[in-house]
């Protein structure tokens, strides 16, 4: 079998936690231009640890920015209702193109009281996103791209216990709330959210304090460092989209089954990019949509074709083994006629049609903390 050895990195960027990853024995991999940890102990062990206890992820490759000024100018580009976003709240939203295709998915939050918005966007799209936002809000708002902060995520059923031992005030946050806190004398920006389906926090830290704070969190025996490999299997089981795979510029929120991220007032006002086309598609039903699937045996991977009665009916956009599910799981775009949960389909793997079933997502129960 062919084996790819450790690759030599040239021109890849490093996060402020690069030295820590190396010290912890991570196997590194290039991702979105960064040299990132793929795994430490092994993907399966890290996945299971996150579901059972708590995992710490370095997501500093993602783009962080502070937006100050006319929020209507920013709102025109996305699908959120910013007037309904109160201080201390966070929303998942979509940056759309003029055809209603998804340029990116992002988090917008108001952790700084009345002092603007905090944006977190995907690593691979951050340069384009920020250029697009800056250009379209020029003269009305100011986008300050943040280059001097790391971003980490602490995820898992014990994340709250671990984090509240360090930052007692953070325990008051519920899912999709945020705020500014102090940890070890350092100002940190915290939201109660993540990308694993578990309870947890995303924490923005000054770059020069990132390693010390990461080590402080890792000093709790319940916490293990988790790489991108398990990050992918965790988010897939939770039914969360990976940008550039499960949706892209050619996918609308209707096809991606992300209309819940298009705020009702924005639908009514038809004032988000591509609104007319998107709402028409929403009314008419799309030709295809994103679904989950399960199967036995070998996992179908991204790009595998889906067939039924010899006809091509779709394509796999994410696929792999789900350690908590105990079998292969994936996401696919499937013709609407075959997209209902329970529909039997076939996926072509190495030329052979393998049985699979359209399955409701998430594949594992989401365990967000929504308050007592």
């Amino acid at each position: 079998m062919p084996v790819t050895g450790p690759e030599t990195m040239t021109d890849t960027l490093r996060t402020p936690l690069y030295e820590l990853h190396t010290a912890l024995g991570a196997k590194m991999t290039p991702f979105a231009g960064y040299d990132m940890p793929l795994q430490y102990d092994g993907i399966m062990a890290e996945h299971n640890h996150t579901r059972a206890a708590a995992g710490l992820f370095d997501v500093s490759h993602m783009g962080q920015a502070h937006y100050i000024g006319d929020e209507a100018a920013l709102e025109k580009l996305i699908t959120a209702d910013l007037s309904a976003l109160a201080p201390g709240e966070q929303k998942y939203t979509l940056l759309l193109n003029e055809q209603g295709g998804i340029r990116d998915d992002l988090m917008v939050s108001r952790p700084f009281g009345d002092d603007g918005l905090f944006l977190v966007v995907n690593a691979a799209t951050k340069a384009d996103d920020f250029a697009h936002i800056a250009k379209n809000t020029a003269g009305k708002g100011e986008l300050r791209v943040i280059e001097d902060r790391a971003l980490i995520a602490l995820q898992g059923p014990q994340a709250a216990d671990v984090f509240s031992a360090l930052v007692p005030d953070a325990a008051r946050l519920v899912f999709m709330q945020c705020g500014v806190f102090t940890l070890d004398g350092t100002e940190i920006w915290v939201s109660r959210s993540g990308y694993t389906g578990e309870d947890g926090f995303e924490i923005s830290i000054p770059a020069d304090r990132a390693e010390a704070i990461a080590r402080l969190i890792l000093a709790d025996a319940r916490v293990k460092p988790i790489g991108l490999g398990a990050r992918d299997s965790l988010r897939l089981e939770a039914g969360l989209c990976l940008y550039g795979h499960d949706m892209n510029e050619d996918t609308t929120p209707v096809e991606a089954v992300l209309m819940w991220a298009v705020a009702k007032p924005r639908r009514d006002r038809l004032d988000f990019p591509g609104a007319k086309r998107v709402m028409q598609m929403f009314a008419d039903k799309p030709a295809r949509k994103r679904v989950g699937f399960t199967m036995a045996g070998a996992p179908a991977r991204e790009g595998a074709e889906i067939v039924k009665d010899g006809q091509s009916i779709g394509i796999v956009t994410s696929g792999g083994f789900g350690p908590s599910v105990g079998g292969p799981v994936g996401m696919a775009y499937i013709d609407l006629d075959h997209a209902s949960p329970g529909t039997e389909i076939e996926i072509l793997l190495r030329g052979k049609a393998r049985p699979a079933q359209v399955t409701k997502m998430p594949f594992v129960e989401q365990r967000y903390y929504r308050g007592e």
Partner: protein
Amino acid sequence: MSVKYTKDHEWVKVDGDTATVGITAYAAEQLGDVVFVELPEVGKSFDQGDEMAVVESVKAASEVYAPVSGEVVAVNDGLEGEPQKVNESPDADGWFVKLKLSDTSQLDGLMDETAYQAHIS
């Protein structure tokens, strides 16, 4: 019984005209957690270098090539329920197939242990 290796990280243990084939500890380590192994049917013949099996880890699928030509006389059914044997015991319980060799001279072209260790270091 001699053990030979390919540059693609398969091992071959030869006993008379039968060879047991698996993947090396180095390969298993590089793959990570194995979650499924697709084995050929008994009775199928392969030429040296043909794709013979597929090993699926959490992160990717990798082909296993026939290190020598021959006919499959047995497959490791135990891997169906316990694919993790490939990680736990790559050079014993995690074997893939037994081949009846059709050309034993092909073994001469494979590496011995010393040469393989040099290949991966």
